[in-house]
């Protein structure tokens, strides 16, 4: 049987769940990983602090580049406690008294470079 049973779709007319949105100009992202939720909730709202297994909590992703962060009002930034964390008087915000804070990197634009140089990906 070679014959198609019939192409029943209208290709351009099928309703699809579309989640394509404009990408923010993030090249490099980062977020903080905390061993104590109180440190995260000092930086962000409780809703922005997500469990990451065990007692670890991660904050939201933000642009590494401060210029980009300023252009994007939705960017959560490095956290409210940072002002205190980096003040000349030391750890005045209280964070750091509970647990450790590390930063982990994240990125977009890590795929696509070869095609951007003009070679078509199709064959």
């Amino acid at each position: 049987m070679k014959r198609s049973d019939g192409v029943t779709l209208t290709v351009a007319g099928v309703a699809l769940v579309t989640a394509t949105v404009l990408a923010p100009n993030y090249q490099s992202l980062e977020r903080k990983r905390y061993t104590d939720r109180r440190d995260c909730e000092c930086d962000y709202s409780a809703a922005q602090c997500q469990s990451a297994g065990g007692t670890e909590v991660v904050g939201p992703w933000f642009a590494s580049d401060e210029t980009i962060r300023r252009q994007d009002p939705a960017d959560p930034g490095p956290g409210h406690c940072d002002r205190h964390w980096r003040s000349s008087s030391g750890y005045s915000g209280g964070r750091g008294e509970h647990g450790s804070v590390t930063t982990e990197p994240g990125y977009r634009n890590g795929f696509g470079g070869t095609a951007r140089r003009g070679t078509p990906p199709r064959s």
Partner: protein
Amino acid sequence: MERLVCPPRDHWAARLEAQGFDYHTSDGVPYWSEGVCYRFTEDEIDQLEAATDELHGMCLSMVADTVASGDYHAFSLDADAAALVERSWKRREPALMGRMDLCFDGRSAPKLYEYNADTPTSLLEAAAIQWFWLQDVYPQADQFNSIHEKLIAAWQQRWHGDLRTVHFASFSASREDEANVEYLRTTCALAGHATIELDIQDVGWKGRQFLDLQDQPIDQLFKLYPWEWMLDEPFGQHIASAPTEWIEPAWKLLLSTKALLPALWKRHPGHPNLLAASFDGRLIDGPVVAKPRLGREGAGIQVFPTALDAWAERASTDIVIQQYQPLPSFEGHRPVIGSWVIGNQAAGIGIRESLTDITSNTSRFVPHWF
């Protein structure tokens, strides 16, 4: 097999556009050929189907034996790529689709030029647009084309009935690529899965997994983007540790390279569906074609009078030399048969013809019937 003039449909361009095929003409040059078609006999279609199934079976055996031996030297894969190939094969990650380019004139056995097993395109026109054409022009005739149904079935069977969210990524600067992915996404949605489309550049990596623009994990990703490019780009280093299931699977790295051709010839010398091929051409008599291992759309393909000439000019580990088999000529029009494999089955053909011996991105798609 014959090339026929057939009546062009009224308002055919508008029809194609309504079907989502809005790149039927590019820079004023038609890509879709309205008003001509190829007619086959049923026996010819049977030959194409059988050859495609046999060649695909030979490819799968070759992958199995290569993984079993662990010898990837002929494929120029580094240890990381080889590990991905092995992992995906041992997990039995299923293939979705591929397109073999075959030489066929209706008289001799079909011959494999190459296997576009990773990022095949011209899917929309082969699966849907030429089918709509058949309904309009030759509604009583048949067409070797069950690509659409087989795609839906492949999506349905892929996770044993489990419904997933599947991401579809392409390089969206290309309308043709986007349209191919949109069509494929439609077949996935018709199988019941949720689908999300994004530009390959918008895939994010955040420590442990690939994420979409909503920061949702990408658990299954169809990518119209070559494996070898992905592995070379900055995110390539994360592929091994990410939980993402890739479509096509990484073992397709062994099939989407022209290094497949010498590998098959070595295993099946003299096979009627193969052309002699090797890395240095020494054992090939007569004219040859030099092909880059990873060339696309005819780029870098060159015909030489002898293998010695090819080797003298193009000697490189990145070149594969194949016996020259000219495309058949139908009053100067040279068709190549794109024979689709969906899942592991021959599923239909699409024909692109050109005026030269090398099919490139300027070739035209011509519908067929039998």
